[in-house]
Each structure stands twice: as structure tokens, then as C-alpha cells.
């Protein structure tokens, strides 16, 4: 495009005229402090929470419930697990694992970008924390699957199978495990089930079978006698419903049980235990401490990303904030919104968390503003069906997804108030963590 012409006198004139001005501006710009410390907030600020998308997979005809959600590490892809919670006997449902890419220009809210058929209800899913295309799924019949959704065909890369060495009851949670302190840098897979087993698996390059590395069983013996609710035998197993790892100590996790027990566990536990099913690998009892129990099942636990000892539990209709060092909860909240199925801390504001409720609402709490009532109530299902799961987007801090009993997923854009870090948030969290010495 550059035209090399003889410098016309007109052009030279122009240049001579503007030269001082341009130089003056260049000088000013290098010396200017006008923008020092100025950070642009590229997101538009707003006070309202918007529902950006309502996603559903039409092929499932609203027959299945959303049981679990997971965001991939880039924050663009949302995976949705479909299943049912009300099985009377064998699971004969044809279930799916669906993904939507929210960055896609032609987002179809009624049809997933990718739908993987799974022969049993999917109860839990988890995207790999680093590799955006790897996802875990745990099913009602006790199998763990690993999928690579980036592949064109044959997305299944490994599975645990059902039978020997596997779960004999529905899987309640699957997750990726990475302990930076351990020598083994590779991610491992952890699965927990209603049969009281917590199993650790390894993904191998060569085989399509997950290799069982070690196992844990949660038994009634782990619960101190004065905290036992049932009169079950000491070696009877306690069904695990949910797990959450501490964000600071990667060997410590909290588990919730069907019977209402809340346990602090360690992956380094050395207390040997026996399990009739698992013969090939050593089995340990993981429990290191038992907290004051609930009288009904625990549906969800979540360790605070901003405090090493605090974690939230949701069970029956009550929320509790526990300190890992203390038997009794530090805070109890009863929102009276039916059963509480899921609780998740915000990744960005230390005192904000979301709760998925049985009456179709998603509650957002801000402990700085109010310790009793939610600061925001979102309508997660217009027809009053339960919300089973809610997940904050770990990389796009404004997004929250919720899934309901009609198979619908709503993606919300949160307001600045709930997202932007506020002074004193951490102090408030610290004050909640203060131990009460009786």
C-alpha cells in the first residue's frame, strides 16, 4: 500500500506543521501519570443478577434431573450430568452427559453441543483441573468413566467397570486428585459411593481400565460412641454422600454421610480396615475426626477456598459452618426452603456462598451483609422443581450455573457486589473461625 512518491511540497508542508505537535504529544504521553494505577473494569458494572442462558437437552424430554454440573478449566464449557435420585430398584434409565460451550456463537439452548450416552444414571461429574477436555463421570451402578470430549469419536478413554474391586452402590462423587507434595505428579481419580468406599484410581496410557491404587472404607467404628445416631455394628459401612478437599492441605478432606455424619479424613491415614470386596489393594479407615452429626443425610460439603479450617455443609434443611478444629458448628442457618442439596463457596469473595434448595430457589449468602438471610434469591426453576446442584465458574468469576429437577440448567451472571473482593471479607471469615473454648 505504501506509495513511494516524490515528496510533494504540500506533504512536506503538512509534516513540518504537525511535527512539533506530534512530538509534543509523544513527550506528554511518556511523561504522563494520568493513567498510573488505573485499571479498567472491562465488564460492565451492574447491580442485578441476570439469567444468561437456560439450557436443556430436548432429547431427554425432561425425564431426567440434573444431578451434577462441572465447568471446565477455561470456563467456557459447562458439562451437565443427567440422572434421577428416586430409584426404587435397578436403574434402567438411558442417561447422558451433555456439554455446552458458552463461547460458541451459535449456542443452541435446546440441544447440547455434545451428548454422550451412558447406560446408567450419572450421579457425579468432574472436569480435569488443567486439561480442558478430560471429564470424569460416576454412575448409579457404581462405574467410573473417563471421557476425552475433544476426540471426534470413541470419547471413552477409561472405565473402572462394575464388579470386583469397584463400587457396589451408586457413586456419590468423583473428583481429580493432585497432591503437589507427593512424589507422584500425575493426577489420580477419587470416587466415593453409597457403599462406604472411597477408592483411588490411576489412569494408565496403555489400558482402558482404571487401575485401583488404594481404598478407604468409612465404618461405624470411626464414629465416637457418643456421636452415633444408629445402633449399627462397628464394622458396618457408612455410605459416603459427598467429599471436599481442603484448599491448603491436599491430604485432608471432609466427607458427609447418609446417616448424617460429618468427618475429617486424611489420605495419609494408616489405620488398616477390612473390606470384604477389596482384596487386591490395602484398605484404610480415613477418618481422623468426627464432627457433631446431622440427624438426616448430608447432601453437600464444601471447604472454604479462603480459609484453611472452615467448611460448609448442607444436609436436610440446615446449613452449617464448621471449623475443622472444633466439634460443634460455628454457625447454623436454616433457610426454610426445603431440602438443601448443594452448597458452594464463591471463588472470589471469601464470605459469599450459594445454596441449591428443594423449593426451586438458589440462595446467595453474604456473611458480611447478613448471617441469617440470603442477600439474593434466584429462581432456579419457574415450576417449583428442586435445584440439585449449583456451581461457580472457577475462571469466569461472574458466572454461576444451577441445575434443576426438570433437566434445565440456568447460567447466571452475578452482580459486582457478589463478585468483587471487598475489604474486611477475610477478617469476617477469621472472626467466624475463632474457636469457642468451653
Amino acid at each position, binding site marked *: *500500500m*505504501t*506509495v*513511494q*512518491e516524490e*515528496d510533494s511540497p*504540500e*506533504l*512536506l508542508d*503538512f*509534516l*513540518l*506543521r*504537525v*511535527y*512539533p*505537535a*506530534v*512530538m509534543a*504529544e*509523544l*513527550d506528554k*504521553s*511518556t511523561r504522563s501519570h494520568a*493513567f498510573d494505577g488505573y485499571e*479498567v473494569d472491562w465488564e460492565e458494572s451492574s447491580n442485578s443478577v441476570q439469567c444468561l442462558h437456560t439450557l436443556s437437552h430436548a432429547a431427554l424430554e425432561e425425564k431426567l434431573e440434573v444431578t451434577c454440573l462441572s465447568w471446565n478449566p477455561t470456563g467456557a464449557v459447562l458439562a451437565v450430568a443427567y440422572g434421577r435420585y428416586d430409584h426404587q430398584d435397578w436403574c434402567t434409565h438411558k442417561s447422558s452427559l451433555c456439554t455446552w460451550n458458552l463461547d460458541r456463537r451459535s449456542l443452541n439452548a435446546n440441544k447440547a453441543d455434545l451428548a454422550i450416552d451412558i447406560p446408567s444414571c450419572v450421579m457425579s461429574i468432574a472436569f480435569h483441573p488443567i486439561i480442558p477436555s478430560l471429564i470424569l463421570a460416576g454412575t448409579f451402578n457404581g462405574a467410573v468413566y473417563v471421557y476425552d470430549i475433544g476426540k471426534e469419536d470413541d470419547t471413552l478413554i477409561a472405565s473402572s467397570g462394575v464388579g470386583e474391586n469397584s463400587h457396589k452402590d451408586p457413586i456419590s462423587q468423583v473428583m481429580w486428585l493432585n497432591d503437589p507434595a507427593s512424589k507422584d505428579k500425575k493426577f489420580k481419580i477419587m470416587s466415593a459411593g453409597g457403599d462406604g468406599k472411597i477408592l483411588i484410581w490411576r489412569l494408565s496410557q496403555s489400558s482402558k481400565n482404571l487401575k485401583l491404587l488404594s481404598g478407604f472404607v468409612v465404618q461405624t467404628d470411626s464414629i465416637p460412641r457418643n456421636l452415633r445416631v444408629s445402633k449399627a455394628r462397628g464394622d458396618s459401612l457408612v455410605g459416603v454422600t459427598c467429599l471436599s478437599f481442603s484448599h491448603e492441605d491436599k491430604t485432608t478432606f471432609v466427607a458427609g454421610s447418609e446417616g448424617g455424619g460429618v468427618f475429617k479424613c486424611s489420605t495419609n491415614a494408616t489405620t488398616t480396615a477390612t473390606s470384604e470386596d477389596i482384596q487386591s489393594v490395602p484398605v484404610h479407615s480415613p477418618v481422623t475426626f468426627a464432627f457433631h452429626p446431622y440427624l438426616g443425610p448430608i447432601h453437600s460439603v464444601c471447604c472454604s477456598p479462603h480459609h484453611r479450617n472452615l467448611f460448609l455443609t448442607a444436609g436436610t434443611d440446615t446449613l452449617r459452618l464448621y471449623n475443622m478444629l472444633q466439634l460443634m458448628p460455628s454457625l447454623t442457618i436454616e433457610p426454610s426452603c426445603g431440602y438443601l442439596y448443594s452448597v458452594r463457596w464463591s471463588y472470589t469473595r471469601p464470605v459469599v456462598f450459594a445454596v441449591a434448595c428443594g423449593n426451586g430457589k438458589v440462595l446467595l449468602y453474604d456473611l458480611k451483609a447478613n448471617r441469617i438471610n440470603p442477600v439474593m434469591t434466584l429462581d432456579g426453576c419457574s415450576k417449583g422443581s428442586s435445584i440439585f446442584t449449583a456451581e461457580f465458574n472457577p475462571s469466569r468469576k461472574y458466572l454461576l450455573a444451577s441445575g434443576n429437577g426438570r433437566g434445565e440448567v440456568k447460567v447466571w451472571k452475578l452482580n459486582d457486589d457478589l463478585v468483587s473482593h471487598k475489604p474486611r471479607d477475610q477478617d469476617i471469615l477469621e472472626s467466624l473461625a475463632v474457636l469457642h473454648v468451653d
Partner: protein
Amino acid sequence: MSSTDTSHAGEILDRIQHHKGVRGVIVVNSDSMSVRSTLDNSATVQYIGMAKTLTTMSRSLVRDINPQDDLAILRVRTKKSEIIIAPERTADDREYQVIAIQDYE
């Protein structure tokens, strides 16, 4: 040194180019063609297109407020750089521009 000492267009542009942080200088003639550019072709074309739209908009804004006034310099601050546009319209409605792109350290 006063600007009149520079008799040659190339010399003027050299000076601008060697100013602190300057990544490129483009001189645009009345046909929206670059007469001189220190950037590659595609970047040059992009900057010219952008500068034209911006100056047209800015000028009409300035003129709307006061018809006797005119746009002298336009500075655009971006995340990475500052773009300085010096447009000039001649009496017979032809327009020259100097575009300088300056990066911050």
C-alpha cells in the same frame, strides 16, 4: 532544534520514529494511502482504516459543538499502547494524517 531545520520528510519521520517508545509512524496522503510507513503492510492498512473512522467521528463531534473549531490531535489510549493521530484538512478538502503508535514500557 527547531522543526524548520528538517527539510526532508524522511528526516522528520525518523525523528518521530526514534522518540521514546514509538513502535511505528505512518503518513497518509489525501487518497488514504500511506506515503511512508515503518510498519508492515497489513498493520499499516489496519491503522489507516481505524484512524480514518476515528478522525471523521471526532471531527464531526468537534465541529458540531463549535463550527469554527477543528480537530488538531487525537490520542487513543489502549491497554498496550497510545495512538497519536495528527490530521489536517487542506482548503480544498484533502486530508493528510500522521499516525504514531507508542508503546509503554
